[in-house]
């Protein structure tokens, strides 16, 4: 009997799973039992046509299966892919490249890669994303040409791999995927989003996972079993009966918590003694709006707009932006305010049309509002689009600027906001009646200047991720500094207390839109410190709402006082956890 090995990664999707490992890697193809499709001496043109037709047939079958399961959206993707496989231009291009004696696999790869590049180069994000679909089709045709099939799990399993592409996850029959454990990937990986929608756990960035699993598997041994807790980001290889019991207990606990939390969704978030806390969602694209509404979000505290500016060759037009903002404003309506964050872009992101100079230290460089001192066109266009979207949706839009560090930054923001409005009015275009204007407080200087800044804006929103990195001078991406990246560090909490005091002196509300707001322990400490609004990923709202409902204002005040006097984040976390621990 081998000893259990505990590994940790980044929590992606909550849930508990225990089951055999299904190892996937990019070359995870096995020769087909029936490889008769490969005819020796077949002309490349005939081989390509036959393989394309077979690929289209497989994709149609897949689309049909998904449609029968009510997964219409995914089904439509495979239907479009099936048409790509049979596309006359694409097939001709591949046949042309293969000639009389070329390798059909090379030809198909080259033809689909070229077609994908054409799509990727279009300045349209939706279409550019289809480039991946075309490459996927190419890979499928090549598999058919080589006479290979994907090796899919034969029993319900936990997928263990570096990353799991969408076409593979879709091939796995429903119920056969118990969880996803990735050594690579990020919290925003496609596989994680899929796991959330399927309600199965996902963990990303698990160091040592693949080595630990592969060390224990051999051709003659039965598959390795692993247990995973998607909420804690923990994986146990070879759990044995004791750990299995522990995980079954956590599963029962999670099921009970989920049922309680879901029952609170249609009620506004409040403490046990009835004090209301505004609980809103962070969203990254207009498509996230429905998920946020379904999770009971009372609005949007952070609508990131970077998606409009990334992966393209030219800046988004004003009209394109109006459409995107309007969709979200309309989805939430006048009762649920939406805070649109002005583009947070700078030297760490490749944005070809901005021609930004490379910087030694982009997080301390010319980014976000700082870009507008040299060239304000980008920001003015975005502000005009928001004025127009507000008018079209008949709501008062809220905006906030990231990376504000000085009073001058706020004055620039306000003047650009008014200039954008004046331009539209002079053209006779309809604009929103006003624009509620706030700033992100994430730079230490803004925390020190909170009283002065508060008098010039309508609200503050604290970005705890960046505030933590700047206050503790610890790079968010540097794994060696993990101990200095917890936003519950008392130094960060003291900065937050100062920001709240500054806001109170001017009578403006304070929101928090960083990860800390979505962490139940963090939500309690923040509410104790006097924060009025918590904004988190839709998937975190249930947990925060349930945590708030279990504590009183007096308990939160005491927690905040104790937290400010602590010396490290672990102590604060333990104090908050003690409040949440079930009474025994």
């Amino acid at each position, binding site marked *: 009997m081998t000893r259990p090995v505990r590994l940790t990664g980044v929590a992606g999707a909550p849930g508990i799973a225990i089951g055999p490992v299904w190892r996937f890697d990019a070359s995870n193809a096995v020769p087909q039992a029936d490889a008769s499709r490969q005819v020796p001496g077949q002309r490349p043109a005939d081989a390509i046509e036959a393989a394309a037709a077979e690929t289209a047939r497989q994709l149609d079958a897949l689309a049909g299966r998904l449609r029968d399961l009510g997964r219409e959206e995914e089904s*439509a*993707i495979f*239907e*479009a892919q099936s*048409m*790509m496989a049979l*596309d*006359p*231009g*694409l097939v001709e291009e591949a046949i042309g490249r293969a000639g009389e004696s070329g390798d059909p696999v090379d030809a198909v790869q080259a033809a689909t890669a070229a*077609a994908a590049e*054409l*799509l990727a180069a*279009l*300045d*349209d994000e*939706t*279409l550019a994303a*289809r480039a991946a*679909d*075309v490459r996927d089709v190419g890979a499928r045709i090549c598999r058919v040409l080589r006479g290979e099939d994907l090796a899919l799990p034969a029993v319900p399993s936990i997928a263990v791999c570096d990353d799991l592409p969408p076409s593979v996850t879709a091939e796995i029959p429903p119920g056969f995927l118990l969880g996803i454990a990735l050594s690579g990937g990020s919290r925003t990986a496609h596989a994680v989003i899929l796991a959330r929608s399927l309600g199965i756990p996902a963990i990303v960035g698990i160091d040592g996972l693949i080595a630990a699993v592969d060390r224990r598997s051999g051709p003659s041994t039965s598959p390795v079993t692993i247990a995973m807790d998607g909420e804690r980001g923990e994986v146990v290889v070879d759990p044995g009966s004791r750990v299995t019991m522990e995980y079954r207990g956590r599963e029962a606990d999670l099921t009970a918590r989920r049922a309680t939390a879901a029952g609170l969704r249609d009620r506004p978030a409040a403490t046990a003694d009835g004090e209301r806390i505004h609980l809103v969602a962070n969203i990254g694209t207009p498509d996230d709006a429905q998920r946020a509404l379904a999770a009971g979000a009372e609005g949007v505290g952070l609508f990131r707009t970077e998606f409009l500016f990334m992966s393209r060759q030219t800046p988004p037009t004003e*009209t*394109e932006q109006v*459409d995107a903002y*309007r*969709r979200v404003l*309309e989805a939430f309506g006048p009762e649920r305010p939406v805070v649109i964050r002005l583009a947070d872009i700078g030297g760490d992101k490749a944005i070809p049309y901005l021609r930004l100079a490379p910087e030694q230290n982009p997080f301390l460089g010319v980014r976000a509002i700082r870009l507008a001192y040299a060239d304000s066109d980008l920001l003015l266009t975005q502000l005009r689009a928001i004025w127009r979207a507000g008018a*079209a949706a008949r709501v008062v839009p809220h905006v906030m600027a990231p990376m504000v560090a000085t009073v001058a930054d706020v004055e620039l923001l306000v003047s650009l906001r008014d200039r954008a409005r004046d331009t539209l009015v002079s053209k006779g275009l309809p604009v929103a009646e006003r624009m509620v204007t706030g700033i992100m407080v994430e730079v230490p200087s803004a925390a020190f200047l909170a009283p002065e800044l508060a008098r010039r804006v309508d609200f503050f929103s604290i970005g705890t991720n960046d505030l933590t990195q700047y206050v503790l001078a610890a790079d968010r991406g540097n794994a060696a500094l993990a101990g200095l990246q917890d936003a519950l560090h008392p130094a960060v909490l003291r900065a937050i207390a100062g920001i709240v005091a500054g806001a109170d002196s001017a009578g403006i509300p304070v929101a928090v839109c960083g990860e800390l707001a979505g962490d139940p322990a963090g939500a309690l400490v923040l509410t104790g410190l006097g924060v009025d609004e918590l904004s988190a990923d839709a998937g975190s709202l249930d947990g925060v709402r349930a945590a708030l409902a279990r504590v009183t204002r007096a308990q939160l005040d005491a927690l905040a006082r104790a937290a400010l006097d602590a010396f490290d984040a672990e102590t604060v976390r333990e104090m908050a956890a003690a409040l949440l621990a079930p009474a025994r």
Partner: protein
Amino acid sequence: MRAEEVEVRNPSGIHARPAALFVKTAARFVSTISLENVTKGKAPANAKSIMAVMGSGAARGHIVRLTADGPDEDQAITVLHDLITGGLGETLEG
């Protein structure tokens, strides 16, 4: 030969799903059919090829020119024109 210009009105333009519907519909006709993104000044694309149609990058608000040449050209133009003005299977806003 018949040609007609029409404005793309559905929110996401002629990308994957709407493009699939458009190409499937175009493939029902024997006429040679092309779609040209006038707004972007692109060359005419084979309306029966999903790659070519997506490659025309037709987004909401763009004007596209439909051209059909063959025995059923009138019917092809009418049907495809209505398909685009009807939103290509997507709900139209506003």
